[in-house]
């Protein structure tokens, strides 16, 4: 009986608590996706994650204000279990082409990092100031067989160079490099057949750095 009450009354609250958050960093203006818990332990993911080959998550966000799309962006997370060193090698590719390399020693470390990491998906300067907005968030898991990591790496190389020049040029519109990167993400990852897909619609929040 208690279990039934828990299932009916409390589970929706648990599910609600497990929803990711999308926050505009008030200092940098970057839109971050946080608290993506609950995907790493899906059977489709666990079956592939320890294959020793690279699997990828693609995080896509589109900000809507008054039912109209105001901005969109994406990030990609590549994960490979290195069998001999027994570490998870993680590459987080941000919307602007910036790559963060991580080594995580165990699945628990990976799960802990995953649930607390903030993934930068787009430059949202001005989005928070313009009033309430909602974000449609889509996270897909693309297994090794469907992804094209080398194409993605080439994309990273090229977009990194492009982003660098954009950063150096004071008159370069800020959104240009990120849209180029997003287009390349679309070209390499999003078109691949995902074997796991989660969607949320959440409020866009404003928060501090970190």
């Amino acid at each position, binding site marked *: 009986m208690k279990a039934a009450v828990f299932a009916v009354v409390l589970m929706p609250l648990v599910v609600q608590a497990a929803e990711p958050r999308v926050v505009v960093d008030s200092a940098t203006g970057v839109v971050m996706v946080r608290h993506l818990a609950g995907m790493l332990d899906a059977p*489709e993911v666990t*079956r*592939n994650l*320890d*294959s*020793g*080959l*690279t699997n990828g998550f693609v995080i896509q966000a589109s900000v809507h204000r008054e039912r109209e799309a105001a901005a969109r962006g994406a990030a990609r997370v590549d994960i*490979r279990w290195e*069998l*001999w060193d027994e570490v998870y090698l993680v590459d987080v590719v941000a919307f602007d082409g910036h790559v963060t390399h991580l080594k995580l020693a165990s699945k628990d470390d990976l799960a802990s990092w995953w649930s607390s990491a903030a993934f930068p998906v787009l430059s949202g300067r001005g989005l928070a100031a313009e009033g309430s907005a909602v974000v449609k968030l889509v996270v*897909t898991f693309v*297994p*090794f*067989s469907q992804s*094209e*990591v*080398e194409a993605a*790496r*080439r994309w*990273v*190389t*090229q977009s990194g*160079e492009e982003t660098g020049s954009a950063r150096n040029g004071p008159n370069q519109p800020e959104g240009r490099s990120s849209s180029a990167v997003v287009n390349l993400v679309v070209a390499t990852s*999003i*078109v*691949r*057949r*995902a*074997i*796991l*897909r989660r969607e949320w619609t959440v409020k866009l929040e404003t928060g501090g750095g970190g």
Partner: protein
Amino acid sequence: MIRFMKNMLMRSLGLIWVLVVGLAAAGAAAADTPTFRIESIRVEGASLASARVVRAESLLAPGHSYSEDGLRLAMRRIRRLPVVIDVDFRLERGSERGTYVLVIRVVETARFFYGVDLLAAASHGGWVLSSLDLDDLLDESSCPEGSCDSLKVLSTGVRQPVGAAGIGWAAIQARYPTGSLSDNPTAFELGYTQYDLFGTGAFSSARLAMSSNGQRKWYTFEAGIPIRGNHSLRLLVDGYQQNEDAVAYLVPDLNELGDTRRTRRLDATLEWRIDSRDDPLFPSDGHLLTAAVHFRDRDLPRSGSPFDPGSVNTSGRVMSFELAGTWYHPFDPRQSIWWGGGVSLYRGDQTGRYFYEGRYIDPTELHFDAATVRAEVGYQRSIWRPTGSTRLNDLRWQTTLSGLFGQSWLDEGFPDIQWRRLDLSTGLVLRNRWGVARFALIYRSRTETVR
């Protein structure tokens, strides 16, 4: 003139610079990619295709190092095996540090299989090529898929592994219409494919089919030799023979009683192929490029009605050379497009008796040259949401639009013919572990101009 040359020089330098930077970027990216030294290869889930067949088709060899893209291309090659519908790779530790065991898990088709082709076709236009019996030699039959109205082909059969690297099959097929007034629609088929010939990854396949009354026979021989990566060389010999008694026709006195009308077709193709498609039936990524030499030999009864008083056979031979390519692009996980085209050059001759401009012409020999250019675009959409790790059930809507322009040059006394063709095909294709079913509507329009 000097300005033009200067512009060309600057453009060339610009192109070289782009190439150098592009190659350097690609090289830098490649240096970053992990490679895996494969100590051994283990195959799981293979019963129809043996582990040896899967290993041979992968073209991966123990002792070599491969990048992830190299492994992914090997996956695609395995997936193109006719008895494999899905494949997955994983690595395990080898016996020494830095070496790996590659585990290939395959999902195979069922042992019993079916095939369904239900095509409703419509066409209009075209006459001169067929009146000269050139349409068959130029592979330009005015009726799509060999039928001018509809075609129903149902087949079922069983596959059986034979030895360490062979697969045999037996099938029964029913086809309506048969293409003959007197023939039985049922045919029996036997086939055998030997993989990994001489340990090289090459294959050869033979197929023999016969209608239940013995009037029609088909025979096919195919061999493929992998060259390197996605490059391979293919030889295909395809024959067809049909014997009919003229007495079978409704008005036998218009033919010589007891005369046998014999149809014989032989096609031989030698093809260089670069195939990086991700799927043999529903490709959404990769490309297929081919350079082929064809030889076609025909011995046909007059293509006109059986009441034609002059039942003189037409025999012809043609050599052709074809360059073709198709590129596939996904634009989301459910949809993809493809585009492609090809150029063919023909040279041939035939002897026969032709009906042209209201009279019969009896040439001893007719020489001809021809060229065709074709272009194609297609769209494919998955009807079922593409989730799940294996592709056991796949239903797609496919639409193709293709256009062709052809020109033939004939001996003096015969007209040169230009023809334009437009084909539109749309339909559903279902694939599962037991087979493939295709339902399609096809429309063909062909116009011919005599010069």
